[in-house]
């Protein structure tokens, strides 16, 4: 894909890393009680690639996304993110479970955008972005503040920096959430249905911010119901059903000419 850094947008990952696999999952399973949510997911994302995961509600796509930054544990299979086994450290022939510090350090390199924004309610937009810079990266206050304003400017919210989340529209809140994740200089960005909780007229501003990010070469995994976005931006579309990926490929293939019946049935409903 075209990953030329555009002015005013985040720089692309260094060329040396191009093509490197950011995420490698094979046979990932997960159960909640008796209900098996993930039945064996095989999935890869290369550096600079935009991957969209589509599929019916309850198919396990959000759960899988949350496994990628260890917000959810997986039961079995291999899950490598940035070349590290998520949740375990391999040492001297054994897997050692991560401690809280290792989890935190791992997650701080992975940006996550939630369906319900999850902005910190007691902070202004600027503090939302600056908070983790200070607490996790150890930035001094002035530096964190400057960086926060810069990131908010990128998503077009510089003049709203002093507002609390409840004073912002859903679209603005989600853009603050994107700025908050980007401020941490993530290696990869995860989006969990970022536009599903938005009023229809606010969806575009969030999708535009995400498209700009994709153009800048960010590695992205996007769980979405926005087929238009997937068609336009995705390098690969994965169709998720009953806890596994049924079909993967370029959007032109999966969305226009699905090979599997289940994919066809789903697309017939949403398109």
């Amino acid at each position, binding site marked *: 894909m075209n990953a030329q850094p555009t002015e005013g947008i985040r720089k692309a990952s260094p060329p040396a890393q191009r093509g490197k696999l950011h995420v490698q999952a094979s046979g990932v399973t997960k159960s909640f009680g008796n209900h098996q949510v993930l039945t064996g997911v095989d999935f890869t994302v290369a550096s600079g690639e935009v991957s969209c995961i589509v599929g019916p509600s309850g198919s396990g796509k959000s759960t899988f996304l949350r496994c990628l930054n260890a917000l959810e544990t997986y039961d079995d299979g291999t899950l490598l993110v940035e070349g590290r086994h998520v949740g375990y450290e391999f040492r001297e022939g054994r897997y050692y479970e991560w401690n809280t510090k290792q989890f935190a350090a791992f*997650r701080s390199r992975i940006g*996550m955008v939630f369906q319900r924004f999850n902005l910190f*309610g007691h902070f202004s937009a600027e503090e939302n972005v600056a908070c983790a810079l200070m607490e996790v990266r150890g930035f001094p206050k002035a530096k964190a503040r400057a960086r926060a304003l810069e990131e908010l400017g990128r998503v077009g919210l510089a003049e709203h920096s002093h507002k609390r989340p409840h004073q912002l529209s859903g679209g603005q809140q989600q853009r603050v959430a994107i700025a*908050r994740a980007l401020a941490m200089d993530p290696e990869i960005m995860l989006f969990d249905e970022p536009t599903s909780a938005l009023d229809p007229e606010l969806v575009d501003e969030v999708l535009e911010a995400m498209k700009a990010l994709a153009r800048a070469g960010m590695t992205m995994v996007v769980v979405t119901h926005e087929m238009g976005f997937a068609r336009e931006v995705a390098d690969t579309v994965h169709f998720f059903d009953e806890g596994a990926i049924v079909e993967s490929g370029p959007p032109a293939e999966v969305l226009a000419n699905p090979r599997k019946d289940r994919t066809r049935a789903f697309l017939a409903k949403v398109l």
Partner: protein
Amino acid sequence: MSPAPRRNHRPTQLSGPDGTTVPVVALKHRERWILGALALAVFLWLAFTMATNPNIRWGKVAEYLFFPKIIDGIWITLMISVLATVLGLVLGVVLAVMKLSANPVLNWLSTLYIWFFRGTPVLVQLIFWYNLAFLFPTLVIKIPFTNVGYLWNTNDVMTGFTAALLGLGLNLAAYFAETVRAGIQAVDTGQTEAAYALGMTPGKRMRKIVLPQALRIIIPPTGNEFISMLKTTSLVYVVAGNDLMTNASQIYKQNNLIMELLIVASLWYMVMTAIATFFQSKLEARYGADAVRLVRKPGVLLKTVSAAKSATPRAADDVAAAGKDLS
């Protein structure tokens, strides 16, 4: 009685069926006047019998109102209230976090603590701490397996004042822990997820993200706990804590002016409660207690005491209860 719907504007005339202007006759609310008059009559009768009771020497009430020993007692009462509340709040937060911890031992100990201190009367706890010397005649803090450290005579340490602090503070902690726990649990789990996703550790998430937001829910009951504590300190008189109630009782035991001194004490408790209520309303306003406003409506007392906008009818009840506790 359900409240009548309120209207901002009551028109005195409206246009009638034939287009001409017709006057509006206001509803008289006769039953409201009658019930109000009856209630007022009962109240005035009670007030009158109290005020004119020949057995109450109001002159003595006035005489003792600013008696030095009473004023000293007020300071001690305030000090015990503030310190015991602070102890209770700090320990309450610790207990709440323990109770929510993934560590089963901490969890279990917190539950045990809460059960124990809520399950025993505070009066028993006060007397227990006061008499701690029966169990431990001396208190020792030293480096283990050495003789380096400090030693105190328990009776010197466990004065009425410290017994009051411990008894009331530890007791409050048990109740407050439940309030804090509810507050923490009321914070959306999405906040925790976002904090983790940004790379915060569980401790940072709690301190920077969850607790500050839980405060909105925790703060309003804290004011009530303090107001309640102001009056609960009167129990301290069983361990001679030199507080307002202890001093008032010492005076009336000498001169037998029981009612007069109880009235003096009640008046001061009411003043303290009113002031505390005022500050509580400030706290609530500060923490934008939208949630609080949903469950409480402004009270009359505070509108008169302060210009503050939000107040609590509960606090007005507390003022009334201040007198009742002592009678």
